């Protein structure tokens, strides 16, 4: 079995930092982790499962924040700038993770580490500084209270421009359960509230500078194959056409098939979508493109948004922000969406959850479940000042913001009045940018995603379209397939957009893996790793959250009981019986029992014997 020090692609070390005591220690990267979990998300899942016991308060000192690189992070191939963060999620109480683009994981590896684990909690604000082998926990009070971009600017000024920074904003400091981690002036690890976990530890920022080289098994071979991979990207049909609008380019399509979140998911078509689509972004506010390390198809669109309140430079808005702050809050101006994006970025709020929560609050207000006195002012769909007001109140946990800072599930439990029917989440994580009442595979993807309602685990909506949107047959099979392929990129430490956006062939990764690591593995071997990680994260959440299983693998009542009222998907919904049938088939395919619990046999087959003992005795 390889160990961390001898395997190419890995720095070979794990860094643990006790942020309360200020000490740190370095451990050898276990060879077993490399073999069974590969890296990135796999390492995060393994560490959280082993080291964060059930009963741990997500915002208490026993929770841990794990940051991990993959073996392909930072090497010469397209999209190698991905980093994975994880923690027990304050949004769901279960397994939480989120990936981020930019330059963090390459820098971490060049500093000598594949994994950073933050433990404990500081009494006062700190920053964690990793400067090659020198690790320090320093006072961070002067940065506390600053916005993400403001703080990153100050940290680079004070430490040096060559440090890569991960930072939280006021939302993370105030333990908002959908606070994100920000990096590179506008990239975020947005989902599952890991920014709040950093805030609970009083860690304002992580700063990393590395000057070592990343060991490679076959540098010459990688150089040649890497060049071929770039050439293949550049020559792909659609390379030139995809890049100008980035992910925002999908806005028209999602509306035209009737899947665009609108008015807190009351419907799935926003009549004014052409005012906030990729073409408007490009024509009205776009300044330049911005990509992560080594990216040939930069999806980041750096923009200048101007509204009555002021103007702001922002990276974005990308599609999810357009959907959740644009359509779901009914903002029909790309400048307004861009400006609200900027406000979230500074506050350190996940734009997906923030838009979802604001839309939920506006529907509650429309229905009289929240009063002007409770909110502090009138709020309305389509009104930018309402949206900005809510975002700022949430980040500060002031007034109505404190009620909403726990997310829509927690807010609905307090507001009552039937609001839980239109609190659009799964397991406490807010739904993202695809309304799925006429897309069974996508609905199943959301219901079963391991972190709660999230699109990136299995983006199956094109399969729905290709195979028949009303059909149930074959949908669970596709969801399981995608739930192994897509998260595998997060284990490898590379971006999946080259594959999903321009059709970059998966075979490239099987070819490049041995050149980096020295280990010859098949794509099926790697998919097996991804399946192992999927079962591990499921087991984590089952052990940590009572009822995590079939009863929670379901969309909100609105999606099961209210047909889409208008637009291209008018009249459609997925019934509870259909959902139940989808789950039956999904669990059977996974080797899980009828309650969505991995069976002993499946866990042992995946080499997770210890997990089998925990779940089954």
């Amino acid at each position, binding site marked *: 079995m390889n160990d961390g020090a001898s395997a190419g692609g890995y720095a070979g070390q794990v860094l643990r930092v006790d942020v309360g005591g200020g000490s740190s220690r370095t451990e050898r990267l276990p060879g077993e982790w490399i073999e069974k979990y590969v890296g990135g998300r796999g390492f995060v899942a393994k560490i959280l499962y082993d080291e964060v016991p059930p009963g741990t308060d997500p915002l208490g000192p026993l929770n841990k924040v794990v940051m991990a690189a993959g073996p392909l992070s930072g090497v010469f191939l397209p999209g190698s700038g991905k980093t994975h963060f994880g923690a027990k999620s304050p949004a769901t109480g279960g397994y939480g993770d989120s990936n981020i683009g930019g330059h963090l994981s390459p820098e971490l590896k060049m500093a000598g580490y594949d994994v950073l684990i933050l433990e404990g909690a500081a009494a006062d604000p700190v920053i964690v500084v990793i400067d090659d082998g020198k690790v320090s926990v320093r006072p961070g009070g002067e940065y506390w209270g600053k916005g993400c971009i403001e703080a990153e600017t100050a940290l680079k000024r004070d430490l040096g421009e060559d440090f890569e920074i991960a930072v939280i904003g006021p939302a993370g400091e105030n333990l908002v359960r959908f606070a994100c981690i920000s990096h590179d002036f506008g990239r975020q690890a947005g989902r599952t509230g890991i920014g709040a976990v950093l805030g609970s530890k009083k860690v304002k920022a992580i700063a990393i500078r590395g000057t070592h080289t990343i060991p490679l098994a076959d540098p010459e071979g990688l150089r040649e194959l890497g060049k071929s991979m770039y050439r293949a990207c550049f020559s*792909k049909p659609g390379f030139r056409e995809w890049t100008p609008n980035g992910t925002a380019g999908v806005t028209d399509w999602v509306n035209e098939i009737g899947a665009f979140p609108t008015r807190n998911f009351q419907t799935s078509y926003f009549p004014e979508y052409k005012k906030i689509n990729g073409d408007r972004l490009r024509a009205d506010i776009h300044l330049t493109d911005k990509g992560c390390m080594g990216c040939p198809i930069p999806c980041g669109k750096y923009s200048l948004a101007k509204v009555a309140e002021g103007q702001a430079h922002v990276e974005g808005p990308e599609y999810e922000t357009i959907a959740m702050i644009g359509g779901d809050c009914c903002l029909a101006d790309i400048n307004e969406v861009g400006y609200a994006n900027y406000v979230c970025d500074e506050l350190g709020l996940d734009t997906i959850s923030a838009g979802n929560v604001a839309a939920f609050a506006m529907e509650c207000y429309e229905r009289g479940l929240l009063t002007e006195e409770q909110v502090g002012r009138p709020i309305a769909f389509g009104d930018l000042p309402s949206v900005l007001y809510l975002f700022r109140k949430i980040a500060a946990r002031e007034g109505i913001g404190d009620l909403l800072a726990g997310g829509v599930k927690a807010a609905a439990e307090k507001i009552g009045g039937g609001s839980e029917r239109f609190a659009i989440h799964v397991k406490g994580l807010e739904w993202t940018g695809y309304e799925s009442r006429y897309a069974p595979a996508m609905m199943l993807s959301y219901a079963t995603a391991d972190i709660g309602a999230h699109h990136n685990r299995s983006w199956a909506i*094109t399969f729905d379209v290709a195979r028949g949107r009303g059909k149930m047959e074959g949908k669970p099979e596709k969801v399981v397939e995608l739930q192994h392929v897509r998260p595998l990129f997060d284990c490898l430490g590379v971006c999946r957009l080259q594959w999903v956006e321009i059709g970059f062939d998966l075979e490239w990764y099987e070819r490049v893996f041995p050149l980096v690591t020295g280990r010859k593995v098949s794509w099926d071997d790697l998919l097996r790793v991804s399946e192992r990680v999927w079962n591990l994260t499921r087991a984590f959440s089952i052990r940590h959250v009572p009822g995590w299983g079939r009863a929670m693998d379901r969309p909100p009542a609105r999606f099961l009981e209210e047909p889409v009222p208008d637009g291209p998907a008018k009249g459609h919904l997925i019934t509870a019986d259909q959902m139940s049938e989808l789950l039956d088939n999904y669990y059977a395919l996974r080797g899980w029992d009828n309650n969505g619990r991995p069976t002993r046999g499946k866990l042992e087959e995946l080499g997770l014997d210890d997990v089998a003992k925990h779940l089954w005795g």
Partner: protein
Amino acid sequence: MYRVRVNVSGHAREYFPAERLGAWIELSEPCPVARILAGWSVSPELVMAVFIDGVKAGLESVAPNGAEILIVTPPAGG
């Protein structure tokens, strides 16, 4: 004889007939892009954008003889 070449971008190209992509196809007369897709039993809802010889077009556009048609399928959010 009407000849065009069709290519498809994005992960959803798996839902198109692989043997037709990138190859010249011959039809008896010019027709809209949508009709070519219908002949392949491909849902027009899989199409996010159409380009003909690099210029943005639509499903109802008729490519000139000898043109290259690019179908862009939807990206997966972000």
